[in-house]
Structures are given as C-alpha cells and as structure tokens.
C-alpha cells in the first residue's frame, strides 16, 4: 500500500498528465514529435539512399536544388543554387555541361571540424566524448569546393555510393578517378581528396563549379536535388577520421554536417534522434504560390515568412504499431500514417469513394491528407520464360488474358482498404507522360463505360486464353492443365489470404497457380537469375521523370542479363529505340508522343499486370499546419508549423489520469488478504494442528 502511495506521489509530481513520454521541461515548447521504425544505416549523404534515412539527412544537408513544396507536377527549384542549371551541349552533343552557381554567404551549422585544434585530439579526450558537440564549435561559409569534394566522394574507395556505377557512366573521369583513389588509399586515416583533381568537375569561382557529363543526361538535374550532391566540407571528414573516433561511433556516417535548417544533435538510433534548429541557417522564405486549392487549404498562410518554423524535431523509435497509434491518439505524436489495423478506426470511405476521418477522429480535430505516391507495384511475367515470356502471339494473349482476369480494383479494396489506384501503365500519376481519364486508359484490359474505365469481362479473357492455345485453361495440344508459378516473399501467416486471392484470380481462367514463397534474399536471387515465371515487385521513383519508370522495361537493363532494373527481362526493339530517344529529351509534346507510343507497346505486350499506384494516407493533429504530402521532397520539416499551446491544452484534456480504479484494485487486494490474515492468526493460536 505504501509503495502504491509513494508511486502515486511520484506520478503526481509529473504534473497534470502522467503518461507524457517526454521530459517535463519540453512541455509547451515549439517541438515537433514524430517517430521512426527502422534505425538508419547511413547518414553519410554519399551512401544514404532510403527514404527513412532521408527524413534525417534532408533536413541537414542541402544539395543545390530541391522540389517545390506545393506545386504539382513536381518542379525543381533552387535551394543553395542561384538558379536551376541549364544543360549546355558542347562538341556537338558529345558532352553536356552543367554550371552551378551557389548563393554566397551560406554558413555551415556549428561543428567541431571547423576548429583546427580539434584535428589533433588526444585518445583520452576522444574516449570521453559522447557527442561531437561536446567540443569547441566553429563554422565557415559554404563554397563550391564543398560540392566538388562531395562529388569526388562518390568514388571514395572506402565508401559505397549506390549511384557510383550510374554516375561513372556520365561524369567525365569519375571511373578513372576511383581507380586513382584506390591506388592512393592507405586504408586508414584521412584520404584528402583535394589532392586529386577530378576531370569532369571544375571550380569556376569560389561559389560556382561546372560538371561535365558524357553525352546528354537531362535527368542529372534531378540528382542535384538528392543528398548525393550535397556539399561536404573536407574539415568534417578530416575531423572524424582521427583514430578512436569510429570506436565511439563518432563518424560522418552518424553525425551529418550541413547547411540546412536543422542539425542532428542527438543520435541514438535505438531510441531517439533529435534535430535542432541550425543557428547559422540563413533562413528561407515559405513559397508564395502553390497549386490550385492550396490557398483554400490554408497552405499559403505563411507565404513569404522565414522558415523553419519549428525549433526542434524529436524522432522516437517505435517498432510496434499499437503503442505508436495510441501515442498519436494521446497527442504525443503530431502526425501519423495509418496501418491496416487502424484503418477502420481512423477513416471512413463514402459510397462515392471519398475518404474522410471517422467522427471519433473528427472530434479530436484530426485531419486526413491523401496523395498518390510516385510508385508502382506490379506482377511481372518473366520474358525469358517459355510459357508466359517472349514476343510470341501465344504468350502475349496469355498475358493479356491474365491481366484482364486479375482484378486489381478488388485487390486494392480487400488488401489496401482502397488506398491505391489501378495502374494503366508503368508511369505513376504526377509524372510527365501520365495521362488521365479515357486518354490514359489501358485498352487491352479496360473499356470506357459511363465515364470511367471498366475492366473487360472474363469472356474476353477466356477468348484470349483460347486463342493463346489454352481453351478452358488446358493446353490444346497436350490436354494438360496450365500450371503457372508465382514467386513472392512470405512475410507471415497474414499472407495466406493474399495468396488464396491470387490463386482465385488465375482460377477464373481455370489456370492453376502454384505459389512459391521464399525469403527476400532467395527471391532476389531468383529474379537476378531469371529463375521465375511470375512474381510481385514494386518501384519507388527516384525522381519525377518518366524515364525513371520506363527504364524498368528497357531491354538492355534486363536483370537476368545485365543486373539492371528490368526485373521482367522484357525486350522489345521498338520500345528500346524509343526509350533511347525519349530519355535525352526535355518534356515537350514530342516527348509525350514518344511516351504514348512506348506505353501502347507495353500495354499490348503486357510484360506486367499493371498493378497499383498506392495512395498514402496520413493524419495530423489540429495543431499542425502547412502539412502537404510530397513524395519527392524529403526536406519538408522546415515548412511545418505547430501551435504548442493548443497541443499542451489538448494533451492535458485527453490524458487526465484516472486514479479511481487503481485505488479500487489496491483496496480489493487488501480486502482479499483479510481472510488469509484471519485464517493465519487462527491457525497460529491453535493448540494442535488437525490431521492433514
């Protein structure tokens, strides 16, 4: 009883709310609370590639360009650059030059690397460090040299940049540069890349540099909006390469150094990561214009105001969905995604298909934002397979028949709570080349009826199947039933329903489907070897250009033949030729015409069952503003704004401690002990024990 009372007193000391997971001194402050599931693997901009990592790196590092926060389709705008660089062809198009001019006066966040004394720390000093910010801090101006240094780091022999292979095809001399660095590397200590010039990257002034590419590569501008091309001060690399730093987890891979609005001040990927406002940040104006409807949605209220609006961002690690969701409902996370388990609690979908929050959420002032992601999930047919692959009429009709029978709309309804749209081709909405409505309908699978695409009937599919030589799902020559194999990754018992549904889709055509489940490694291995028949896969766009989707079906990028990204190993000479032309073109009616033709070709060939472009649903509390989903830009934290006073008030209202039942339980426990005590005393006073 005493313990419980002491505990209650302790909890009473927590203020009016007891279940607040954050320190009391943070209450009422301008802090944004969010979460992360997977610990980031890399925060070094030359290595980091996942969206989870970008949530941290993109708030710290500033590449020359960024995406407009509000406008759609996505548009590149300057970040640290003075303008979006224009490609200049030289030597008759043999090379392309991008000249990037950086805004002068931008300063780095405070960092120990900018204090020369910190380059020669004693082992004891390093051993006592918990954070690099325990040391004296300095700063300096951002220079073109820092961008050049970072481009050189793509070829660093001790780093693994995922885009080195791609960039070495384009940036003049980068491949050879990697060899040069490998020769020079002593495997330990700092490798000063300033000593080694890179042919294709040239400094033209203290705030300008030039990148020379082989041939034409218009998509290069999009890479300039990714952390791979963010500036890296040599001092930071020099600082972290001191002996003993890595043993203290003090590396550039864990402590980013940038010019962005925030700096990472706490890095505990097991529990919590904290971004603090960078005191040296120059300030950036909130965009003055957006797309239609943004003003009405209140997204232009802060137009022209200086960002960032939030002082600190706290990311807490939350591995399980139940505590995560409950903490959002309690107001301890400011925004949230919606898991399948919580969908019905959070969202109601009208008969017309409009999604909105449930009355329970509405009562709390929670609002819903939706957006179609620049991603596609599909079922691929292996082009190298004898039955479903290849450009024979028989195989083509078989693929078309299956594409019609495979009811993607039903799949979205059953397995994604309606969160997605059925794909009509490889290109996702919001990307140049994507066409809406009837213009964008896939005529192989759909027909236009009453103002919307309607999946063709099973009769059409069965007719195609018969024409392919499989009447009623049997081989016309041998009479054997058609059995197809579907390779996928098994994630758990919950997959059974999905697999049963897959089988049903093929059974509609009397085709037997054998599901071959395996783990991710084996699955990838099978895809690499072309050892599949049908399989399930997806793609998230790197940048908003049709090339980034259409290359997934480009013959020379076959996964089995060249380890490229064309997992279906699809090959069509006409498509491939059009792709080579299209990828070098700027967006124009001519480019659209080529894309239309390419999409028509792949629709007819049907190397994929055009699956789903997922829709992301996110919830935010009433105290959060300026939140607009942007699947391309990850540097969105600077735009967000919160009302801490309103949050504190609502948190207190929603989380009043309920002590009554606890006291009741204690009283019940005490009461239940009374018979035992009475019985004990009675026994102790007995003169003799009764026979047992």
């Amino acid at each position, binding site marked *: 009883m005493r313990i419980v009372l002491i505990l209650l007193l*302790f909890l009473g000391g927590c203020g009016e709310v007891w*279940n607040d997971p954050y320190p009391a001194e943070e209450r009422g402050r301008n802090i944004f609370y969010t979460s992360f599931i997977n610990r980031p693997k890399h925060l070094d901009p030359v290595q980091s590639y996942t969206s989870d990592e970008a949530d941290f790196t993109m708030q710290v590092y500033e590449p020359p360009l960024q995406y407009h926060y509000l406008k759609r389709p996505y548009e590149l705008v300057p970040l640290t650059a003075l303008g979006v660089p224009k490609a200049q062809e030289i030597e008759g198009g043999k090379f392309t030059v991008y000249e990037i001019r950086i805004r002068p006066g931008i300063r780095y966040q405070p960092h120990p690397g900018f204090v020369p004394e910190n380059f020669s720390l004693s082992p004891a000093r390093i051993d006592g460090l918990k954070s690099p910010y325990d040391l004296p801090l300095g700063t300096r101006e951002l220079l073109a040299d820092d961008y050049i240094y970072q481009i050189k780091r793509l070829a660093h022999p001790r780093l693994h940049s995922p885009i080195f292979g791609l960039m070495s095809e384009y940036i003049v001399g980068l491949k050879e540069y990697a060899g040069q660095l490998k020769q020079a590397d002593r495997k330990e200590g700092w490798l000063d890349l300033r000593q080694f010039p890179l042919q294709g990257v040239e400094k033209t002034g203290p705030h300008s540099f030039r990148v020379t590419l082989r041939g034409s590569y218009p998509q290069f501008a999009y890479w300039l909006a990714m952390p791979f091309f963010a500036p890296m001060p040599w001092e930071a690399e020099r600082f972290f390469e001191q002996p003993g730093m890595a043993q203290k987890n003090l590396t550039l891979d864990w402590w980013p150094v940038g010019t962005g609005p925030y700096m990472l001040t706490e890095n505990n990927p*097991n529990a919590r990561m904290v971004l603090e406002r960078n005191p040296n940040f120059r300030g950036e104006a909130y965009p003055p214009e957006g797309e239609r409807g943004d003003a009405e949605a209140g997204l232009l209220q802060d137009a022209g105001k200086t960002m960032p609006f939030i002082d600190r961002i706290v990311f807490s690690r939350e591995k399980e969905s139940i505590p995560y969701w409950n903490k959002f409902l309690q107001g301890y996370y400011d925004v949230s995604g919606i898991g399948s388990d919580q969908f019905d609690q959070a969202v109601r979908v009208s008969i017309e298909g409009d999604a909105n929050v449930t009355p329970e959420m509405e009562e709390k002032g929670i609002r819903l934002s939706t957006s179609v992601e620049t991603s596609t999930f599909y079922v691929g047919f292996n082009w190298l397979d004898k039955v479903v692959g290849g450009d024979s009429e028989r195989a083509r009709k078989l693929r078309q028949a299956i594409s019609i029978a495979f009811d993607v709309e039903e799949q979205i309804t059953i397995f994604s709570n309606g969160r997605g749209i059925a794909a009509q081709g490889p290109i996702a909405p919001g990307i140049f080349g994507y066409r809406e409505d009837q213009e964008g309908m896939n005529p192989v699978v759909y027909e236009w009826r009453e103002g919307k695409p309607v999946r063709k009937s099973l009769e059409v599919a069965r007719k195609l199947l018969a024409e392919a030589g499989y009447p009623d799902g049997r081989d016309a020559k041998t009479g054997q039933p058609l059995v197809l194999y579907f390779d996928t990754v098994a994630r758990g018992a919950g997959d059974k329903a999905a697999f049963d549904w897959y089988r049903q889709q093929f059974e509609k055509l009397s085709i037997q489907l054998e599901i071959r489940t395996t783990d991710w*490694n084996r699955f990838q291995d099978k895809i690499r070897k072309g050892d599949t028949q049908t399989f399930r896969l997806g793609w998230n766009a790197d940048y908003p250009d049709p090339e980034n989707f259409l290359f997934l079906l480009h013959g020379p990028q076959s996964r089995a033949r060249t380890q490229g990204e064309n997992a279906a190993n699809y090959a069509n000479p006409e498509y491939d030729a059009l792709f080579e032309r299209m990828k070098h073109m700027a967006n124009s009616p001519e480019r659209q015409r080529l894309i239309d033709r390419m999409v028509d070709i792949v629709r007819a060939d049907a190397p994929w069952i055009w699956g789903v472009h997922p829709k992301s649903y996110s919830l935010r509390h009433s105290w959060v503003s300026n939140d607009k989903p942007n699947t391309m830009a990850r540097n969105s934290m600077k735009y967000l704004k919160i009302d801490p006073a309103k949050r504190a008030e609502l948190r207190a209202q929603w989380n009043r401690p309920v002590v009554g039942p*606890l006291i009741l339980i204690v009283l019940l426990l005490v009461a239940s002990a009374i018979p*035992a005590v009475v019985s004990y005393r009675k026994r102790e006073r007995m003169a003799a024990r009764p026979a047992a």
Partner: protein
Amino acid sequence: MLGYIVRRALYAIPILIGVNLITFLLFFVVNTPDDMARMQLGTRRVTAEAIEKWKAEQGYDKPYVWNSGTDGLGKLTDTIFYQKSLRLFAFDFGAAEDGRDIANEIRMRMWPSLALALPVLLVGLAVNITFALLMAFFRATYLDFWGVVLCVAMMSISALFYIIGGQYIASKVWHLVPISGYAGGLDAWKFLVLPVLIGVVGGIGAGGRWYRTLFLEEMARDYVRTARAKGLAESTVLFRHVLKNAMIPILTGVVVVIPLLFMGSLLTESFFGIPGLGSYTIDAIQAQDFAVVRSMVFIGSVLYILGLLLTDLSYTLVDPRIKLQ
C-alpha cells in the same frame, strides 16, 4: 575451489567454439555474403562490382571454413569463420556491418535491459515466493485451491496479452504511465513501472506453482515435523526452515539467469520501446548483421556458462555439505 573454477573455464572453450560454429553454420545456411552485401548496400542500382568490393572490405570474400587455395595453417585461418570468430575470445567484437562499434552499443544497451530485467527478477522472486509460501501455508484449503487455479489461469495467458492489455488499461484508459518509450537515469522509472509490473504479474502463474511444489515437498520432510513437534509457530517453520532448505532448487533457477539479465527481453523491449540488448539482437537478425548476431550469441553463451558456474558456487554458500572439487 580455484581449481574447480579454472577447470570449468577451460571446459567453456570447446563449448564456445562449438556454439560459434553452429551459429556460423546456421547463419550462412540462410544468408550468403552476397545477401549481406545487398542488405547493407540496398537493392537499387547496386552493381556486382560494389558487392564484390563490400565483401572484400568486410572479409567475406574468403571461403567459409576451409581455404584449399592456401598452404599450411592458412587453410584454416584464412577463412571467414576463423577471421570473424577468433577475436571474439578476446572480447573484441569489432564493428557491426553498418559501421557502429558493437562493444560501444552493448555498453549503451545493457543498462536499459538490466533496468527492466533486474526489478522483474527481484520483485518477481519476492512476489512468487510469498505467494507460494501462502499457498503452502494454506495447503488443502480453499485459499490454496483458488491460488492454484489462479496460477494455472495466469500461466495459460500469453505474454503478449499481458503486454497489450497492460498498455491498454494502464496507459490508454487510465493514463497513468507512458505507453512506451525510455529515458536515461532516474527518469527511466516512469517507463519501467508498467513493463516491470507486467513482467511480475505475467510470471506469478508459473513461478507461484513451481515454488509451491518445492515448499510442499520440503514440508513433507521429517525435520519439519520435528520443528512443529518442538512447538514452533508455522510461520517460523516456513520462513526459517522450509524456505532455507528450499533454497537450492530456487538458486538453481535464479542464479543461472542473473548473468542473462543483460541480454534483455525481446518482446517486452520491443513493445515498450526500451533500447536494450534484446531488441538489438532482433534488429541484427532482421538486418542480417552477422557481426552483431555472432557477438550476441557469444556473449549469451559466456553468460550462460558463467551463470551455471555461479549456481554451482552458490550451492556451497547455502548448503555447507556441498564441496566443490
């Protein structure tokens, strides 16, 4: 005694080599070095050269356990198994595949694990023994009967139910404690109250029944009858004589788990967001991080062997008749 300890320490060496070998084989049956490279480098735009480079840098480009390409001892030593496992015996765990220092991670994470596991063990032990002694005291009465029924019922409930139910009631409905999270130092207490309570309550069923059986067995012995015949109060018989003599089986169960407390609880840490060693191991398995997996298995084995040794030593403390030779 010293000779006994040295002998046991020497016995541990082949056991640890065996554990390492089994871990190695099990890991590489399901993961190849190529898979590990892809896990670290990602699956997008990764070239075969990048994979080979990663393997060479990490030392995964060698044969697994036998290198027929070299001469002499090199056949054994120039292998992944030898290179990766030998330094564990010097407690040099190296870096995880993502570059973070494993020893540093373990030092950081063992305290949250211990902060959760130690109170669960101690409070749980006190509660279970008290509950079992009460049942033994009231044996063959309705209190004993319903106590056993309660134990069986509590044993039958999944640990996950206690966790989710506890979080729902204590945090979501009553708003008494945070539903998950962790803070260092004294601030940790408000995050630990609920998981500790759940750990203790969840263990009452099995623990209560087990200790009740031990006590009842002891109470049937002649010395207990003698004590009662001398006119000692039942409480004195139970607490002074029965409890003391039941210490050997209690110690067997308790001392062996003390070193393992550092290893953490997989489920509880995950649900309560406690950054301990339990979740570290799970993360490493999911990330195919062999460096962490082998280190954690090695530490687990060492601690288990240590626990068994401590158990043997503790016998001599509670029973003077036992001598270790």
